[in-house]
């Protein structure tokens, strides 16, 4: 479908916001569930984009900037794939193909992030200069410039995709044969495991593996909703904390952050 001027401006604004949040990580506008949904909202494709956002969100569960490391770029992946989905005019049927496009984009976005973070190094040298003169305004100014650069990092690619137009994008997507799109859907069912694996690797200790097992087994009962799992989980945590204090021997495992399953995986 073709977008009106107002819609294009709104999409670029959302892309700008997502780019800023991609570095700030505060309001979370770069997360697929928000970025895709907002683009769907302003372009009149709310439901397909909502589903795309939900699916990408599951993929991105474990993506995080830790220390100086840069995670795959959720902002570019969600903004660009949502725009491509909207332009293709395929609705919900185009979600799987849009996800497959999002992954390489997340890698491309990573490169752009590294470039902007390098440019920012130059900006803080300008801040050093302003500091010597006690110039508060100048420090604020350069900080805002750095934030704007991060916004443009996503806004410019978004505008470029819309400039190329719906035609080529649609042709590209329709040229994909059925075995490819179906196969991508099969792969899409599995890639979620990568995000989960990242999170588990981060949290797993000897102490908490049993809770993983309980959760896994309970999930085979289809009538327990996710909110229900939240309730059970909170209750289990409270019980465990209360008991480990009462027993007195609860500190027995203190300092031991061993990860038995992890060791098995390691030795394998």
């Amino acid at each position, binding site marked *: 479908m073709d977008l009106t001027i107002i819609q294009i401006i709104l999409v670029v604004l959302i892309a700008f916001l997502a780019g800023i949040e991609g570095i700030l*990580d*505060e*309001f979370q506008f770069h997360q697929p*569930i*928000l970025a895709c*949904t907002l683009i769907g909202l302003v372009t009149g494709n709310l439901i397909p984009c*909502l589903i795309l*956002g*939900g699916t990408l*969100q599951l993929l991105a*569960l*474990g993506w*995080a900037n*830790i*220390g*100086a490391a840069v995670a795959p770029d959720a902002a570019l992946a969600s903004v660009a794939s949502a725009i491509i989905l909207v332009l293709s005019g395929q609705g919900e049927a185009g979600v799987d193909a849009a996800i*497959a496009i999002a992954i390489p984009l997340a890698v491309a976005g990573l490169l752009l992030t590294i470039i902007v973070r390098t440019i*920012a*190094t130059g900006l*803080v040298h300008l801040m*050093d200069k302003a500091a010597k*003169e*006690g110039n508060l305004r100048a*420090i*604020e100014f350069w*900080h805002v410039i*750095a*934030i704007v650069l*991060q916004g443009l990092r996503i806004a410019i690619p978004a505008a470029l995709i819309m400039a190329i137009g719906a035609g080529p994008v649609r042709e590209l997507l329709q040229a994909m044969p059925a*075995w*490819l799109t*179906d*196969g991508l859907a*099969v*792969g*899409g*069912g*599995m890639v979620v*495991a*990568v995000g*989960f*694996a*990242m*999170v588990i*690797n981060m*949290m797993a*200790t000897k*102490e908490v593996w049993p809770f*993983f097992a309980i*959760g*896994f*087994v*309970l*999930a*085979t009962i289809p009538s327990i909703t996710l909110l229900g*799992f939240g309730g059970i989980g909170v209750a289990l*945590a409270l019980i465990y*904390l209360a008991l480990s204090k009462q027993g007195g021997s609860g500190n027995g495992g203190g300092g031991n952050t061993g990860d038995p399953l992890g060791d098995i*995986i390691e030795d*394998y």
Partner: protein
Amino acid sequence: MAQEMKITKRDRIAIWWRSTFIQGSWNYERMQNGGWAYAMIPAIKRLYKSKEDRAAALERHLEFFNTHPYVASPIIGVTLALEEERSSGAPVDDAAIQGVKVGMMGPLAGIGDPTFWFTVRPILGALGASLALTGNIMGPILYFVLWNLIRMGFKWYTQELGYKAGAKITDDMSGGLLQDVTKGASILGMFVLGSLVNRWVNVAFTPVVSRVQLDEGAYIDWDSLPAGADGIRTALEQQAAGLSLSQYDVTTLQDNLDGFIPGLSGLLITLLCMWLLRKKVSPITMILGLFVVGIVFHVLGIM
């Protein structure tokens, strides 16, 4: 130093808001230093009036700094208390302020990253995504509102805590409450992850393992049903009575696997991914690899 300068609550609210942008000028040389200085500006304005004092304060706060962006707030709070003492004549030197910043940023990042990025975000994200997948707009709304309530509340409360506790906050960190929260969060996190791995890693192996011809009377004999709506009713009644829809009892590989416990293949893939991650395989490689596996296996008729 007759007049003692105080940072007002309004200043602290302004600083709290500015700390939202602490990663704005993140750079490879000194990381969050620009954002840190940006956040401290309302305090510098309040405490130091001369150009020389302001210049010294700005240079002091443009030193290297990096932590999880939310747990920077308690560090900001402590630093505010220290700067306030310094401006009123107390012997707080640059090294003390830098020492507190560096001393707190490492351990706090160790709490912030697993708590926010690997517990709160996956849980809220999964909750939001599960609603979004069914086309429910409450998914993103819940995610946005809950996340920001937690984030803004946490940042304000810990900044105030840091400001009041001053230099004593480092003792606080070893206190029991924070440990309880961290441990409780990881229990909840692992529990929910266990259920999500079961529900959301979708693998279906399609090869047919066995195909058994059923006895007459064990399946619905479509040819002998009455015509029209009567036939539909009879068929539904027979199905409810436990009759099979077709003459054959088909068992796929997936049915066999589900016999152990539903979701087993998803669990195995997750464990494989964990192992690959520990072998330093990049997540992106794994994601692309799984797509390739999906396409190849689908073409071969295995999935």
